[in-house]
């Protein structure tokens, strides 16, 4: 984790009046699995294409390793791409596809042959070399695209939603396989996805993007547990948002009035002043339900709805007059049904640091 593999320095990209990438700075370490995560149209692909050299920045600098890229064309950059639609050459065999980069770099024929067959072994497609891309399944084509990029031993591998076209089960399997592969070969991966679960599963670090901007960069845990703002908290996982006014605050802890007769305890990293209007974010699984109040910070509520979803049960609980929060409890036992029934009066409890104050 010593050297940097990729660095973007205040990079912007405009297409006419559309700002696809807006003042993005990031630094990706050597050997890191780095994800760009965000909703469709937020500028992930454009960011990746700026690194690959298919687009040139309107403003800002792109470094690969220590080298400023400037207007370096794609074919002179030490990176390779796994395209979203795979982009395998339909008129070439699998072997020719995988060997294309080595051939362009004028490597000796026997070395190309050896490395191509090694690459096909690595992605578990041995002996498929003589087929044409159209004779392979989607999952197999995906592996060929991966082999075709990795055979060149690039400094950085760029992947644009590589698993997007696969069905759920295959996608899950490939996620783990890709992660293991990356760990084994130690090449830096820059991975684009709009699937937050995928990003959390695979990444060392994630950059969450929206509207062309990077909103937060952090480990999956940081992003999930300490979202920087409301968008990140909302996009990653499920969150209850409560809006209110600060009524009391001391270092580390504050009280927020959500309704006339409803105040809740929250943690406060930053200093908050009395009467500040704030948003509180609480994850559904961080809230526990109790028949009796466990301490004086518990909040009373009434269960409005009980939804069984297999691995857990979701309770919609009304607190105060009209505030509804979602609570999730794992179904630990077998056939025991929900712990609480619809209409029951209960108490909600959470650790102070689970209720986070958000600014935006």
């Amino acid at each position: 984790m010593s050297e940097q593999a990729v660095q973007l320095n205040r990079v912007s990209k405009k297409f006419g009046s559309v700002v696809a990438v807006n003042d993005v700075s990031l630094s990706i370490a050597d050997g890191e699995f780095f994800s760009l995560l965000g909703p469709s149209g937020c500028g992930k692909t454009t960011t990746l294409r700026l690194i690959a050299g298919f687009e040139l920045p309107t403003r800002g600098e792109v470094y690969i390793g220590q080298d400023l890229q400037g207007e370096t064309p794609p074919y002179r950059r030490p990176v390779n791409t796994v395209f979203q639609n795979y982009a395998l050459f339909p008129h070439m065999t699998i072997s020719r596809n995988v060997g294309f980069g080595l051939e362009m770099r004028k490597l000796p024929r026997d070395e190309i042959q050896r490395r191509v067959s090694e690459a096909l072994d690595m992605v578990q497609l041995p002996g498929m070399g003589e087929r044409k891309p159209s004779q392979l399944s989607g999952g197999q084509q995906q592996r060929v695209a991966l082999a075709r990029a990795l055979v060149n031993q690039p400094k950085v591998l760029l992947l644009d939603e590589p698993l997007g076209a696969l069905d759920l089960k295959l996608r899950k399997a490939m996620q783990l396989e890709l992660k293991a592969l990356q760990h084994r070969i130690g090449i830096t991966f820059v991975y684009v996805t709009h699937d937050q679960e995928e990003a959390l599963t695979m990444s060392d670090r994630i950059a969450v993007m929206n509207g062309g901007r990077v909103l937060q960069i952090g480990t999956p845990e940081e992003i999930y547990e300490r979202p920087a703002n409301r968008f990140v908290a909302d996009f990653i996982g499920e969150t209850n948002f409560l809006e209110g006014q600060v009524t009391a605050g001391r270092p580390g802890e504050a009280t927020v009035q959500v309704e006339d007769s409803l105040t809740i305890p929250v943690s406060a990293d930053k200093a908050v002043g009395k009467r500040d209007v704030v948003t509180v974010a609480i994850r559904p699984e961080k809230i526990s339900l109790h028949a009796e109040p466990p301490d004086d910070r518990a909040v009373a509520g009434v269960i409005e709805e009980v939804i069984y979803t297999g691995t857990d049960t979701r309770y919609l609980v009304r607190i105060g007059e009209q505030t509804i929060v979602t609570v999730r409890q794992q179904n630990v036992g077998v056939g025991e049904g929900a712990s609480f029934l619809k209409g029951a009066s209960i108490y909600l409890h959470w650790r102070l640091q689970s209720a986070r104050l958000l600014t935006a």
Partner: protein
Amino acid sequence: MKTIGVRRERRKTSWVGRLLTVHGIAGYLFLYLPIVVLVVFSFNASRYASAWRGFTLDWYVSMLQDQALASAVKNTLIVAGSSTLISTVFGTMVALAMERYRFRGKLAFDALLYLPIIIPDIAMAVMLLLFFILARLRLGLVTIIISHVAFNISFVAVVVRARLAYFDMSLEEAAQDLYADEWQTFWRVTLPLIMPGILGGALMAFTLSIDDFVITFFTSGPGSTTLPLRIYSLVKLGVTPEINALSSLMLLISMALVMLSLLLQKGGGGGIEIV
């Protein structure tokens, strides 16, 4: 109620349908009967078209021994071969430019590209003739070739563009991602993938060139008689069975070329590897 309505409806359509079928058959007869007659009489042992006197290949044999005809065939092949080659290269380049680049007045160029396909042969022929006279070019094989290139470029460009419209640009990016520069990308990826379209366009150009009469007639000079011109001058003296034989043969060749062209345009999905 409902069933009755349906039945009445069906009876009406079947009546209309029958009329349409009859019309269709009549139309096809009108189109193809002369061709069938031509082909049949090219095998007729009688010199006169009035009656069938048994099967013979004599007309084909005597046709092949005709010296003037042989020279016309040679001219036709020279014209078709060179005009196809030139128009395929330029037509492909035009198609690539039109499909890939945005430039000022592109729409006008687009319309101009279709013009040689749309305007009447006779207008094009007169224009070309005027041009050659103004340019003081001696009419002959060269002027015919230039004229054929003039209309064939459009046909080739249109066919190749149709192929390019389906071209997946990410394939070119993939090549560049794998260290191929622009030139290598063109030769290794772009050209092989549009090759079926180019060959289809070339075959079409070849066919059009072999068949062309009007434009060739206006732009030819002494000693540059092509096959259609030769047939025309023979027909003026009366239709002989040799002409039937010759026309049948040309029909066969044209049809084969067009079929091949269509096959290449439709199939060849994967492209053709060159190097």
